[in-house]
């Protein structure tokens, strides 16, 4: 691995951290202090999935775990649980990345959606088991659907704007 690819990898890792911080920043802006009826998508999860499929080496597991945990802490969720599930799902995507690389986008989207449902369901079940107050059901479903629908958009930004593309065959071997 030569110098240039190494700087590029670290640069992209930093970019990912910056994206997460930016999303958190906009979440935290005190714009709406009244309770809302609708929710935006969970962009952090969508970005983590999109990057995990494309370039697993840009989003190493420790970085993902740290960023998810930071999001948990700042967004006032039970710390650790969502981070753990999202990390598991991302790692699962990474292990399938080679297969998804050659498949169509529809295939990738479907896989991502199934994992998102898994994360949301497991989160609710584990909260129920540990007797933590559950978030409102309607809002959770709304967030899940919004995240699923936003996934193509996130992929477009990842692919087009940030230039994170699936590795071409043979590119990894050097």
């Amino acid at each position: 691995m030569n110098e240039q690819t190494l700087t590029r990898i670290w640069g992209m890792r930093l970019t990912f951290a910056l994206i997460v911080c930016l999303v958190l920043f906009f979440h935290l802006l005190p714009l709406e202090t009244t309770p809302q009826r609708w929710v935006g998508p969970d962009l952090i999860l969508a970005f983590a999935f999109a990057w995990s499929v494309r370039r697993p080496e840009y989003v190493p597991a420790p970085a993902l775990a740290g960023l998810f945990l930071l999001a948990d802490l700042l967004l006032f969720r039970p710390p650790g649980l969502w981070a753990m599930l999202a990390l598991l799902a991302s790692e699962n995507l990474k292990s399938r990345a080679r297969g998804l690389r050659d498949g169509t986008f529809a295939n990738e989207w479907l896989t991502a959606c199934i994992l998102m449902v898994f994360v949301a369901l497991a989160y609710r079940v584990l909260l129920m088991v540990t007797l933590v107050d559950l978030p409102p059901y309607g809002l959770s479903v709304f967030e899940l659907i919004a995240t699923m629908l936003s996934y193509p958009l996130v992929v477009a930004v990842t692919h087009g704007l940030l230039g994170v593309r699936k590795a071409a065959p043979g590119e990894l071997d050097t």
Partner: protein
Amino acid sequence: MAKDKSNANDFTGPLRRLLLSVLIFCLIGFFLVWRIDSPRVERFRAHVTDTFVPNLNWAMAPVTGTINLLKDFESYQRLAQQNRELRSELRQMQAWKEAALQLEQENARLLDLNNVRLDPRLTYITGVVLADSGSPFRQSVLINVGARDGLVDGWATMDGIGLVGRISGVADNTARVILLTDASSRIPAIVQPSGQRMIVAGDNSAAPVIDFLENSDQVRPGHRVISSGDGGVFPAGLLIGQVAADPSGKLRVILAADYQRLEFLRVLRHHGTTPVTDTAEIIGPQLPSPEVLQ
């Protein structure tokens, strides 16, 4: 070129899996510690927020300002209509102002007659709202005063008019205010004309539910709800809002504080109500004790 990929995978696979299981283990352990020993982890959370959010303030303030400006710009379209509404409101307000002035004079006279000293310990600190909870599932805001300014968990927070919430989680420079609308907020209150005691319970909607009401027949929409100070954590006599009935007939509280724009919040210093420690005794002539009689 044609290296065997599975071979490389075999080499790093176990190491990666080990790292992953360690990470998963740490995260789930963190969650369990939070579940078992919540205050310690919440303190840690407050600390993380404290180091993270104030550093973003230089960017947050202008962005929030710009977005609010754009929001206001939309409302310029309804300017003429708003102007008319404001004029009629102003006329009503002038009548109220007269009434208020007269009442103020009367109040001052009565206070003077009774030689009343208002509680000098009831002071407040004003803080600026730095950030909201960041997720629609929780209703809280972060303010820029904290342990450095002597804040303590449980103190009441108001905007100019009504109760907004309760301090929960104090870090050095910041403190979190759980709003009355949050699903975990419970405030003991009293309904004004009938004196019924009850709990104002947040449920993640704009108007919290009235809970544990003794006799709902005596409570009508429009009655004033103020905090009762039961439990001794919260000061008594703060305005919360007005009773209202939702379409299903459930009683709710329309909050007096303006939740649309929470910008400056007042934190009331509260040093606890004096607890009654001795049991009830009859006030009357001193009787000789039973031992003396025998």
